[in-house]
């Protein structure tokens, strides 16, 4: 403060006392917020309501087949049916609303943090995952309780090299990140993480089948724009993580009601397929069959049942890269 601010020594002393108390309060507040932030991290990591939490709860297990992708592999695959048809142990890690960056976090958490193993991965990709620059806000929100883990922080740093620093800066003040995401990581979700009174929307093996029909007045065409190279880098990172862990990569695109403007997509397919050991494009498999969809990009329960059969045949019929038959043969 400038000297003219104070009228007397008494005032200076009063301000000193005030500033000392303020400093004490800030220090105390920081400790409280840090404690609450840490408690939130711990509490949320106990839950299984969100897919990320559920994936975090799977530890030290071995699977023949792991499904990974967005809502288009969460809702379009009957995981239990796939396990039954192939005779394999299957788990579906697909996360609704996720992009490649989130899937990279999931697979690294699953393999590196939680020491699970797998023989094959069914990686669902589509243009949505490849045409956008990714959403750092969304990724950071998805993995907030796990953000201090090496697997997650490394994945986010790889996916968002430019904006990662600002997120780390935000974390310098505890609870700020939870404040910004408090509708997703809310107090009721914390209570639910500790007491599990609300069940997750997905089933035992990770699928979420939706028994709903596709309204006739809904839009029917999905225009596929040009694929961006930036997301290839992250898909490549996922396949690299899998290879490092000895996992064979089967990549596929899930069915669309009516995929349009395939020129851009088709042109990119060879490059995308080169990242995988096997590639299956199921995009047009049920084109125009309204009874099998609940919207233009998601199969409904009936669609998922018959698509799972198709997928099972593809899995079983695919020879692995090392020359042996597909697992389960």
């Amino acid at each position, binding site marked *: 403060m400038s000297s003219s601010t*104070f009228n007397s020594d008494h005032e200076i002393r009063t301000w000193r006392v*005030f500033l000392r*108390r303020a400093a004490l309060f800030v220090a105390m507040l920081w400790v409280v*917020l840090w404690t609450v932030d840490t408690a939130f991290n711990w509490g949320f990591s106990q839950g299984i309501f969100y897919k990320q939490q559920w994936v975090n709860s799977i530890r030290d297990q071995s699977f023949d087949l792991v499904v990974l992708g967005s809502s288009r592999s969460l809702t379009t695959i009957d995981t239990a049916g796939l396990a039954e048809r192939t005779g394999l142990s299957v788990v579906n890690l697909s996360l609704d609303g996720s992009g490649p960056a989130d899937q990279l976090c999931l697979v690294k958490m699953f393999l590196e943090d939680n020491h699970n193993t797998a023989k094959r991965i069914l990686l669902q990709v589509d243009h949505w995952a490849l045409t956008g620059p990714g959403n750092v806000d969304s990724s950071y929100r998805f993995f907030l309780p796990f953000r201090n883990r090496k697997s997650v922080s490394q994945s986010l740093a790889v996916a968002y090299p430019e904006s990662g620093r600002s997120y780390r800066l935000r974390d310098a003040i505890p609870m700020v990140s939870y*404040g*910004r995401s408090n509708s997703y990581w809310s*107090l009721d979700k914390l209570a639910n993480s500790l007491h599990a009174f609300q069940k997750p929307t997905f089933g035992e093996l990770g699928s979420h089948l939706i028994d709903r029909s596709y309204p006739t007045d809904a839009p029917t065409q999905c225009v596929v724009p040009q694929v961006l190279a930036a997301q290839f880098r992250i898909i490549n990172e996922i396949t690299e993580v899998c290879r490092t862990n000895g996992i064979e990569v089967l990549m596929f695109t899930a069915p669309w009601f009516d995929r349009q403007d395939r020129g851009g997509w088709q042109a990119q397919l060879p490059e995308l397929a080169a990242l995988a050991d096997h590639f299956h494009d199921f995009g047009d498999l049920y084109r125009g069959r309204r009874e099998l969809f609940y919207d233009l990009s998601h199969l409904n329960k009936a669609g998922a049942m018959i698509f799972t059969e198709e997928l099972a045949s593809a899995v079983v019929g695919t020879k692995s890269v090392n020359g042996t038959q597909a697992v389960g043969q």
Partner: protein
Amino acid sequence: MLFNSVEFVVFLAVVVALYAIVPQTIRWIILLISSYYFYMSWKIEYGLLILASTAINYVAAIVMTRVEQERTRFVICSAAVILTLGILFTFKYIGFAIDSINGVTESLLNARWIDPIQLVLPVGISFFTFQTLSYTIDVYRRTFTAVTHFGKFALYIVFFPQLVAGPIERPQNLMSQILSPPTPTPALFASGLQLILWGAIKKIVVADHLALYVNEVYNNPGANQGIAVILATLFFAIQIYCDFSGYTDIAIGSARLLGFRLMQNFDRPYLATSIQDFWRRWHISLSTWFRDYVYIPLGGNRGTVAIKNRNLLLTFVISGLWHGAAWTFVVWGAIHGVFIVLEQLLNRTGIRFQGIAGWAYTFTVVNLAWVFFRCNQIQDIPTIFTSAMNLSASALFVPSISKIDNLLCPLLAIGLLTAERLSTTSCFRVPFQNSLAFRYALYVTGILLVTTLGVFGRPNEFIYFQF
């Protein structure tokens, strides 16, 4: 730059730090620059608009002090008032006026006379216009001496803590502090921080949560029935109080960090036992402004009962129109006016509103009037009232918002009212004043409430910013 944004927190911290560092003689420059920066952060052109209003009234006041003739002084004052109100009318009411004229010509002649105009409403224009006018009229009335320092006068108009939504200050209070700046004291500084935190809780935690429920019901009239509509109206009463008084608390708190004391704007309005009492407690700076610059010049209490009641009714209709350029606000103002006139008439017969009956009557009328204030257009009113009466089809929960938000709304509303009530009792006051640990515990709890229950990431402007 909204008060409920990180940008404002950083801005305020920088301004307070600079204000403390620089010599007292140039502090007004820091405040003037930061206030213009604050206002122009919405739109750079706004700076020119407020500068124009400042220049008009500065010149008018200076000229009035140099002129002795009452008639000339009156002409100068009137010219300044007309020009200042002209700016307000152009930006706020011209679209409404054209729409209303077109509405009449369309119904009578089946043709539109004037092409519609849509101008962007500058934030806080109604507030700074009224604050400017109070200065010019007070100089004309010789209740305040014109300020010769243009910079300090400009700061009076644009002082950022209360620029965009009040309190609408009088020169006797704010200008006097600008001319002889008070020294910030630790006690005032601490009370400023307390008010900012309390305001943030009211706005971010309570008002923005209730807005989820209220917006869902009022933006989809007819979609929800019975109790949900009644609850939405009650929630809106709490929402608008928390939104506006939360803003005011942050404004008063921010000013206190700089050593300034702004006037009180709210005094627990929902405890009022008559509509007249309500207006002594709600938006006090506006109701006293209307009393001093509209009601009294219209004749006030002078004249017959009929004239007095006409003055009252007119003042409230204008007050409604001040809030927004729409018929919904006019009706809202008129309802308050009509009930105040009725109360005056009953008072003459010896019937007075007081106690629990007075409170119940006031709360009911205020809530009924809020329906007009909140609805998106006057045409929604029949649907809203019909839906509210359809109790057989009613559900407590609004299905389109989460169950937890449905549950939180009543809890937060009751919690807020209880906290306000408790804060005046000695069982709260005594430990709050004497125990540092108690205060710190409350502050930490408040900050945790904001982080865990605050609504972030949505465009949650303050309701009164639109006025």
